[in-house]
């Protein structure tokens, strides 16, 4: 077990390193002279010099990469090109919003997706199963920001049940916090519910055909025990994979949801930075998001061992 974890950790380090190369290489992709591209033709020589220094453009490439990487390892992702505000701090100010959003959406997707998927699988071919298949296809194909817009139109303009924009800190009242997150979380979770429900259904349908499920039935176990204790545990393995992928998807999609609901999270920071071409801010955000995704996938990998002891060996 310890050896498995160590091996996975090593892979993780390599992966993050490769990603750091890709993220750093973004600066090199800037077409033409970065200063003109980023500042426009009307920049004053002082601005140009300041930018060259802040990006370290006059230093050798390897040195720049090393400085950026060693800084990142110590939690210093550089400073914003526009405001001289530290990137780490900008992210820290806003991460609470995104984490509340993504974690709530993940929990909702997993719970709802599993329940729907299991109910569809145990009555394979029934009306609920067919509805689930159709609904999950639509849920996967639906642009989630559009769902957000529809919800805003309906709940905001017509019913006024939930606030449709802005954020309230949990410290200023939990009720307000929940109300502000309600529609964004539903919006963000919809695709996840669809993907997890579809995978859970497919995987459980396959598992229910396996011999050991028949053995469990031949032992006289109740349907609840056959599905809940035996089939589901094996069926969960591909579902967990999809859940891991959801974390990456939710992180990306929260950009759109934050835009729709005007939430001050990492996503809106990213959008603003892209419009401003604030390269250090973008690099920091992408690197951080990737590290989160990679760590989650490591946890997913390790959970396989518990679900299927046979997998722990390999």
């Amino acid at each position, binding site marked *: 077990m310890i050896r498995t974890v160590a091996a996975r950790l090593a892979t993780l380090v390599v992966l993050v390193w490769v990603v750091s190369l890709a993220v750093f290489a973004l600066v090199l992709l800037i077409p033409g002279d970065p200063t003109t591209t980023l500042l426009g033709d009307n920049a004053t020589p002082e601005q140009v010099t300041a930018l060259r220094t802040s990006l370290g453009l006059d230093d050798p490439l390897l040195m720049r990469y090393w400085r950026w990487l060693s800084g990142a390892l110590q939690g210093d992702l550089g400073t914003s090109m526009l405001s001289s505000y530290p990137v780490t701090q900008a992210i820290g100010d806003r991460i609470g919003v995104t984490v509340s959003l993504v974690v709530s959406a993940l929990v909702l997707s997993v719970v709802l997706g599993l329940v729907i998927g299991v109910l569809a699988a145990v009555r394979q071919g029934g009306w609920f199963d067919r509805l689930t298949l159709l609904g999950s296809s639509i849920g996967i194909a639906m642009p989630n920001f559009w769902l957000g817009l529809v919800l805003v139109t309906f709940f905001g303009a017509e019913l006024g049940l939930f606030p449709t924009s802005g954020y309230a800190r949990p410290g200023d009242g939990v009720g307000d916090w929940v109300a502000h997150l309600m529609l964004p979380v539903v919006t963000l979770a919809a695709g996840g519910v669809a993907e997890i429900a579809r995978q859970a259904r497919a995987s459980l349908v396959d598992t229910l055909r396996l011999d*050991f499920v028949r053995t469990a039935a031949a032992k006289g176990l109740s349907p609840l025990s056959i599905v809940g204790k035996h089939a589901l545990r094996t069926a969960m393995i591909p579902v967990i994979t999809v859940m891991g992928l959801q974390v990456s998807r939710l992180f990306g999609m929260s950009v759109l949801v934050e835009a729709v609901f005007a939430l001050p999270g990492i996503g809106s920071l990213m959008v603003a930075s892209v419009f401003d071409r604030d390269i250090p801010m973008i690099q920091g955000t992408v690197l951080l998001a990737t590290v989160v995704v990679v760590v989650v996938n490591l946890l997913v990998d390790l959970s396989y061992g518990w679900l299927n002891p046979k997998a722990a060996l390999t």
Partner: protein
Amino acid sequence: MNAVLEINDLVVEVATAHGPMVVVSNVSLAVGAGETLGLVGESGSGKSLTTLAVLRLLGTSARIASGEILLRGPDGVLDLVTLPERRMRDVRGGRIGMVFQEPMTALDPAYSVGEQVAETVRRHLGLGRTDAWKRAVELLDRVGIPSADRRAHDHPHHFSGGMRQRVVIAMALSCDPVVLLADEPTTALDVTVQEQILTLLGELRDESGLALLFISHDLGVIADISDRVAVMYAGQVVETAPVHELFAAPRHPYTRALLRCVPSPGSDRLATIPGTVPTFDALPLGCRFAPRCEHAAAVCEGAPIGLDTVAATHFARCVRIEEVVS
């Protein structure tokens, strides 16, 4: 004879795109306590469906269309065809145990073998966790798992095929069933391991006096363990007789052909039956074996053939027995 398990006129249908298709036609079988009935036939002859029907584990595509399956016990006779599902669950694993063909896939990979045996014990005998575990270890020891108290904690993938089949047998016997259904329990195993499992099943049957329904396509295995044999072909029982009589004086041309297919020392050439088993959507109206039978005549076609009494305990579904034997 007072049979513990008695199947009368069982009909099993499979749902197809063109409506239901009968795959088990009016099968009647009976097994007494301490007795072994060998059920033999090629794959697709309906022998596995017959056993699954006993436990009502046919799945969603097949169903029992008619017939009765009687289970005799101290508290009277139960008809398993009409028994409510909730009480059927007490029968499965409790009164009737089942051993499957594929030991490699019959166990849940996620739980230790001890847990899987103990689970059945807890379910039917109402023992607590500790007592159920103790009983599971005893059972694993009884079926010949070495150092069972330690091995009980291991997961199925740590065991060989033969050892896994022992675990499945321990599970099937954990609640002292009166009937054991064994569906090709040795087919997937090495020859030497086959022998050990057969011996074990024989011992267990004799110890506890359970009725054993043993399914196989292998006549050698059937000859080893059975007291009586029923031969199935295309969903019908075509011949049934005590084991010695069947092997010494087979009556049905199909049984005779099957026996010729068994490789024997001294003959260097393996006989095969010409033709193929008819599909269930295109069964002959008369004798189902007639298209492949060397003795077939006009009388074999046209109308269904009944089981004829050859001797008191010997029946065959053939109208030309006299000609066949001569």
